[in-house]
């Protein structure tokens, strides 16, 4: 029994210190690395990010999690992505009604699927493409796909719009983002 205990304890320790998949602390970013750089480079490491809309939970997302999001919230939404209770921008005030429940939607529209439960550190930012720009919110299929159409100007305008939006949001969300790992 004593031997089994030692083997068990050592196994746990090895897993914890061997740099396994689970990461408790984000790898240190370079100094003078601003939030935009951060986002632009995210896909360097997180190429498969949007395959896992809850960030870490690889599994089946039943359709009813989307049509009645409180199920998804209960089973898959990490507590550290919640808004602070004292934050005035808290959206999920009516958590009793799936129809009213529209996480991450500030315009009153019901958000599209993948956007609904996106982690807060991308809040307000449309999904990042491999080219470093931003696409329309959503990405229904959940996969990251390079933006295939549109001229450079159009892209630039979109980027600028997105950036303005980001800056506004960042001002609001900076406190949260620090805690949740997205902003600086």
């Amino acid at each position: 029994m004593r031997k089994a205990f030692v083997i068990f304890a050592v196994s746990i320790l090895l897993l914890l210190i061997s740099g396994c998949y689970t990461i408790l602390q984000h790898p240190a970013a370079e100094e003078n690395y601003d939030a935009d750089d951060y986002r632009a480079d995210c896909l360097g490491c997180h190429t498969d990010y949007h395959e896992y809309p809850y960030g870490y939970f690889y599994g089946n997302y039943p359709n009813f999690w989307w049509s009645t999001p409180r199920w998804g919230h209960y089973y898959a939404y990490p507590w550290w992505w919640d808004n602070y209770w004292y934050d005035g921008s808290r959206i999920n005030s009516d958590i009793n009604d799936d129809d009213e429940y529209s996480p991450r939607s500030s315009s009153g529209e019901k958000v599209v699927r993948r956007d609904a439960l996106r982690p807060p550190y991308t809040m307000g930012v449309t999904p990042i493409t491999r080219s470093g720009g931003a696409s329309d919110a959503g990405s229904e299929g959940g996969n990251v796909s390079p933006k295939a159409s549109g001229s450079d100007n159009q892209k630039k305008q979109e980027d600028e719009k997105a950036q303005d939006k980001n800056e506004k949001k960042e001002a609001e969300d900076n406190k949260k983002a620090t805690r949740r790992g997205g902003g600086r």
Partner: protein
Amino acid sequence: MTRHSSVAVFIILFFIFLPITNSAQYIEQVEEISAGNFFGYGARQMGMGGAGIMAIDGTALFYNPANLARIPRIEFIFGISNQNYRDRSSVRPIRKIVDYGTAIAQVETLSPRFQGFLPVQTSEEDSKNNTRINSAIITVPYPTYRGSMVIGIGVARSVDFDKIFILNHIDTSELGDIIAAGSEFQSGGLYQWGAGIGIDLSPRIAFGGALYLYTGKHDYDWNYDLDSLNILSYTKEDLITDNYIGFNMKAALSVRLNQAVAIGMTAETPISFNVEEELNGYVLENGADSSYYDYIEYNVKKPFVFSGGISAQFNNAVLMADFDYTDWSQLEYGDNIDMEAYNDDIRLYYEDAVRFRFGGEYVIPKAGLSLRAGYFIDPLPIKSEFINNNRNGYSLGVGMLIDQVMTIDLAFVHASSGRNSDFIYSTEYDSSDNILSSHNLIIDEDISYNRLFLTTAYRF
């Protein structure tokens, strides 16, 4: 001398001249109450026949710690259970004489029970209810950037000792009656205290481990009255209290094969129980009473348990199946030479068992409801000659999601089984206190239980 007279003389001699200090015990004295009496925890799992290895909530701490990694929110889960346990016993119209004087005990089966006597009453039924705290578990996911790490601590009532048995048989003859009545009342259980962790090793693979401490108490009360032809009046009462403490650990894996199907497996190390047993007894025989007291300590080593489970999700429906394997013949007593002598009997009485549970859940999302049903086979861990029909049952359950933070689950479980055992009616000893022979009655028991589980969980 008529035939009845000779029978009467035999009976009188039988009860007067043969010591009966050990009467009213089962031949399977080796029977270990902690073996094969898994109670179950978590109303969601119990509503699906007890299939819990791939169910995701705080009870994963005990079913499959790897699945702790699938809990994204701080959760507190609390459950209670209620059991109605029913036992109907019947004494067969035959008896066995066991001769222990040979190297291997020789058994001679005689029928009828006693010649010249007619059975008047052969069966009796009784039941008991118990309501217990079933589980209290808190799980805390540590904020991660990638993967998952969740810690759980809590307690669950894993083994149940709440049982009842009643014996009532009357044989009549021209000379009078032999009346025997016994009642056995057992209560208690083992609480399993656990601390565990679940960690994602990859997006699809989670590893878990948990340490468990077991504490519990078994109260055993046996009352037996025998009146034989108004010649022998015998009363016996035994009050036995066993205090259990033990520990073990479990390692577990959870693997998502694809978006819909996941499998899990666990290995649980042997539990080493330390048992302190205290006996208080009382005998009243033809007006002369005596009492006795004993205290012993010993160890019980429960063998490895290997478990596996699979779940498949089809939109609103989930199917789950579990099995676990335990070789109960490896059960062992230790640290007490008298108890170790029973280890050979354990190998003769116990055998390995595979438990199987199957269940499903259908979610009605808008209503916030989950409907569940399940079936399970939970074989008695004893050899087939002692089993009349093996233990199996079904379950039904319902769950509610309230707001996005709380669940309330209710499950009903019914199971039944049948077994037979020897009831030692009388024992003959030599001058050195060695058993020479015993006269045994064979008792059949039809056992059934209904269990209700109510569990509520709050996710912060």
